[in-house]
């Protein structure tokens, strides 16, 4: 006698689009001109294109998806097809000034390995991670008992590419574990970087980290 009811549309808090232009701008602000930049999961290469054309950077992308890779080729961006789950095999140590990983860390199988690899191949690692400790996520989990959903795409828990849920505090733990120095921590609140924001772990929807292997010094 069960009557089929239309599933109730639940409004959920959505994490920002990984390719958000605003995030790209925040990343660009951290990268010095005329440096060598590696973008892990570069998608169609738009961040690298700006870095190349505006900041005269020497750029290299890594992307698994062939269609995205071809889109990057149409922008003249060099891209290596590769799976981040396999690390950065074949990339020599310290071959880049910056390695960028934007909104992808939660999607790789071994986040620890990939951050370690970034610190190996680049002088500095720029990582933008979603902050699953955002108050709205906490509210959804705490009050509604529902798993957090990220990105504007309607992923459900069973088909989401997000394998890991971390907060800013959690990410700091990882940095410590890897003996990496956090050169910069920029909470991103509604698309704006707010340096030294109060209650960042509660208010930021994501955060940008600039990491450096301890003992390394950024050459200005």
């Amino acid at each position, binding site marked *: 006698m069960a009557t089929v009811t239309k599933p109730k549309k639940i409004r959920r808090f959505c994490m920002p689009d990984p390719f958000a232009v605003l995030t790209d701008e925040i990343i660009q602000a951290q990268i010095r001109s005329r440096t060598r930049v590696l973008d892990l999961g570069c998608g169609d290469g738009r961040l690298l294109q700006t870095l190349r054309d505006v900041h005269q950077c*020497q750029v290299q992308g890594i992307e698994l998806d062939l269609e995205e890779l071809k889109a990057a080729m149409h*922008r003249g961006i060099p891209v290596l097809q590769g799976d981040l789950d396999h690390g950065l095999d074949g990339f020599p140590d310290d071959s880049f000034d910056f390695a960028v990983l934007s909104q992808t860390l939660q999607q790789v199988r071994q986040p620890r390995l990939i951050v370690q690899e970034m610190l190996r191949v680049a002088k500095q690692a720029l990582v933008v991670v979603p902050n699953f400790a955002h108050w709205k996520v906490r509210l959804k989990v705490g009050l509604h008992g529902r798993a957090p959903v990220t990105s504007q795409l309607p992923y459900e828990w069973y088909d989401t590419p997000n394998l890991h849920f971390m907060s800013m505090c959690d990410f700091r733990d990882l940095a410590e574990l890897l003996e990496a120095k956090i050169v910069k921590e920029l909470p991103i609140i509604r698309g704006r970087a707010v340096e030294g924001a109060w209650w960042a772990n509660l208010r930021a929807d994501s955060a940008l980290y600039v990491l450096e292997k301890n003992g390394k010094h950024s050459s200005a």
Partner: protein
Amino acid sequence: MSIENPVAAPAMIQPDTESPPAASDPRSVGIVETKFLTLFEPPHPLVLANGSTLGPITVAYETYGKLNAAKDNAIYVCHALTGDAHMAGKRATEDRKPGWWDELVGPDKGLDTNRYFVICANVLGGCQGTTGPGSINPATGRRYGLDFPFITFADMVSVHSELTRKLGIDKLLSVIGGSVGGMQVLEWAAKFPDQIRSAVCLATGPRLSAQGIAFNMVGRRAITSDPNFSQGSYYGDEKGSIINIESGPKLGLAIARMVAHITYLSEESIENKFGRHLQHREQFTFDMTTDVEFQVESYLHYQGQRFVERFDANSYLYLTRAMDYFDLARDYGGVSQALAKTNARFLVVSYTSDWLFPTAQSKEIVASLVKSGRHVTFVELESPFGHDSFLLEVEPLQEMLEPFLSQTHLTAASDNIGKSK
């Protein structure tokens, strides 16, 4: 079956500006002509890697499309081991088949002849019109045979490079090659780093693996142990202008081809194509004298037979040896060192089922390019066809060549503007 040996060739030619006769297929380059050019004439012979000299050298080549006024749209294609200059179109309307990469070369195709001027030449040491062991040695008036000097890929690339200059081109938009052709592309980048704007390396590696050397050795042994090999002097007609391949080590050459052909396929593609299907009957014959029982045997026999009709065994010996010798790291003190000198952009492509030049070899090229800070794009394409995939999987290749070449061409155009300022 005999092969015409070119005798005379014009000393200096202008790039072809005439369009070919209208073909029924608008995407075909139409009727094409193999042209000949003589290089390294006395007193300027080619100094070979083994220290000896060779000259004059006749080169058989074809071109498709038009060289533009800025001369910045030329693309050179290096053919694979047993290929030839005839890459696209037909040499006569009644030809059964078009050139070996016709699917990729033509108007609106991957190598778009509306935009680019495409060159392909038979390699030094080959037997399809370019000077090789079957050519007449001007010093003796007889065919070289095994007196032909030992040649390497570096020597072949020197000839490619000289042909390019003779065609009036200072800098190529791209050099493209698969397999052994890809090795020549790498050699080109190392030896003449300023002559190329981009390089496309398909199903290749910085050296031939021990397994590859082993297969080549079996092929050569089949040829040299054929009773008709006669120390390479099997041409019969030693002074004429015709190579008579009928008299050569046909059986050995066919076996060499059969072995090599297996390495070009994959287990999956052989299984899909032939399985264990029998050729003539439903049941086994239980007769040792039956030459061909399985379809795959018939196929290899056919490949062997077709090959001896068009290829000279001595060329096969020289070219496979050159392939064995190729080792970028050994010749230049490291793969990175070899590739660091060029500013060319690279596109490196490997294929999942290729076991002769597996992806790891392409990745080694890529890692070396990354190490030297070069502009490099790498893709591993899914394909069941083994090493031959680079010839067969034209569409995915075309989708990558199109942006790669047009983006490279943009940099060429901006360089030219820079120069004229």
